[in-house]
């Protein structure tokens, strides 16, 4: 659990940080140059706060007033850098094991094989960083940080600069981490899609202050006028079996069955479904006959935005789903928080990740 209240100062730059959360994934958003990376550097010990206090799981890491500053190498905070920073003179395997070797055997909660499998790095272990693609390097960077069995995993824009397909597979990989490895993650991004798919808690930097939001969806308010990028929800589900048509799967989300495109896999496999908001339509019951396969009973949790575009945040059996709709539709359906709706999306619109 992260509990930080501190002030960063450097020349004319001043940032006031207040961040306390025990959510498995905490998102930090804010415009470029707002100081997101500085916040991460302070928490990891690479930068000293001017005043305040940083605690992790109750242990004080920084308190300038009493001269406490735990050096970075003793913090056990995994840091995945935007620029990877792999050691060029070491093989992938040596890079992965760099931090792992520094731990006493009793401290190694995360195993080498586990990370290699999870990140699919097996075939690359003997290679050198210079010969890897951007996505492969990022995966090594994440694996290397994980293998330090960190108390906190910091990810600085881990999906930036990657193409669409890589983003999806890495996002899926990241979504698995908190549950697989039981580690809190601090996730920085300026892409709403990743943040909303991953985070249970979100903080935003505005006017020199970092503050926790009541709910991650409020990020949508923060940027509502001009949410031009794809907002995506990540739903957790379990494979129920193959669907009627070949190439499709039945997945149970909450208590409901939905159909998605995906390779055959055994019943009971946990999966993540990425549902882009612009593929979700809302209907009021009763429903007419529809070709759309997926219809999830939901409740409007909040409406974000006021101009033409509205992002409706929906509660689907405790999970978040987003629908990108027009304000005209909001008026016609008389949508407001609390209204029960049915969220519909085509089987083809969902991207599945294992």
């Amino acid at each position, binding site marked *: 659990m992260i509990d930080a209240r501190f002030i960063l100062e450097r020349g004319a730059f001043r940032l006031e940080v207040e961040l306390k959360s025990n959510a498995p994934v905490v998102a930090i958003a804010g415009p470029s140059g707002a100081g997101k990376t500085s916040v991460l550097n302070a928490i*990891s010990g690479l930068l000293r706060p001017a005043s305040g206090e940083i605690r992790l799981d109750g242990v004080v890491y920084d308190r300038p007033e009493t001269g406490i500053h735990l050096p*970075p*190498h003793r913090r056990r905070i995994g840091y995945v850098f935007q620029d990877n*920073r792999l050691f*060029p003179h070491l093989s992938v395997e040596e890079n992965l094991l760099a931090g792992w070797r520094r731990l006493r055997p009793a401290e190694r909660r995360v195993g080498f094989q586990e990370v290699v499998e999870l990140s699919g790095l097996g075939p690359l272990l003997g290679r*050198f960083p210079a010969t890897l693609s951007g996505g492969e390097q990022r995966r090594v960077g994440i694996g290397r940080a994980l293998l*330090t069995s960190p108390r906190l995993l910091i990810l600085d824009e881990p999906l930036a600069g990657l193409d669409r397909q890589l983003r999806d597979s890495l996002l899926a990989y990241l979504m698995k981490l908190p549950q697989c490895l039981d580690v809190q993650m601090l996730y920085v991004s300026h892409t709403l899609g990743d943040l909303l798919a991953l985070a249970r808690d979100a903080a935003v930097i505005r006017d020199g202050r970092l503050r926790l939001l009541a709910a991650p969806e409020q990020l949508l308010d923060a940027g509502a006028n001009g949410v031009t990028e794809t907002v995506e929800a990540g739903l957790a589900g379990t494979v129920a079996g193959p669907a009627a048509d070949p190439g499709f799967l039945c997945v149970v989300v909450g208590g409901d069955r939905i159909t998605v495109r995906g390779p055959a896999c055994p019943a009971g496999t946990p999966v993540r479904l990425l549902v882009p908001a612009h593929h979700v339509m809302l209907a009021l019951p009763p429903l007419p006959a529809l070709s759309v396969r997926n219809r999830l009973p939901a409740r409007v949790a909040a409406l974000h935005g006021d101009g033409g575009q509205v992002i409706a945040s929906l509660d689907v059996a405790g999970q978040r789903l987003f629908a990108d709709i027009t304000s005209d539709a909001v008026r016609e359906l008389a949508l407001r928080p609390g209204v029960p709706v049915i969220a519909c999306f085509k089987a083809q619109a969902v991207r599945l990740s294992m």
Partner: protein
Amino acid sequence: MLSPAEWSALKLSLILSTGAVLLALPPGVLLGWLLARRRFPGKVWVEMLVWLPLVVPPVVTGYGILVLFGRHGWLGRPLLEWFGVHIVFDWKGMMLAAAASGLPLLVRSVRTAIEGVDARLELAAATLGFAPWRVFWNVTLPLVWPGLVAGLVLCFARAVGEFGATRVVGLNTDGNRTLPLEIYAQIEAPDGSGGGLLRLVLLSLLLSGAALWVCEMLLRRRKEHGG
């Protein structure tokens, strides 16, 4: 082929230069790292001090050692009183003189090489649990390896060639002359045996050439290993 005097000159040159490189190595690496990575008061002065042996006449370097390490020098007296060690007018002093004249080249090489290492890699190593000395040993040093080797070879070559400082500090007697000292002695000798002189000159050329070749080989081998 070589006369006993020439053999002993070659031997002494090799021993002194190798010793000088080993002597210069720890302070050379430390100073190179300090100058590349740390900011501290008086940095400019340290930098100048390191450069000094390269810019002052070698005779002055030798004289400096004589003054510092002489029987009544700041460092010479305690060395003599506490350890019974006397450095000047001995091979130890000559080695020190050779080390001092080679040090600036080593420091410069190491410093440039360390400045070429991405400091962000060192920060990343810290977050992986590397204590500062381990960051240096496991990350910085392997990455500056070529620069370090180049610096050591330059230092060695400079030590082999050193004349002025070793002449001031050392004994200029038979069996106590390095190659350059022996060459000079033969030039000065009234009977001037030209053949011996030529052999010595070729020998010193060979020595420098060998050092450069070793350096080249080491760097090439490293490249082939994909580092």
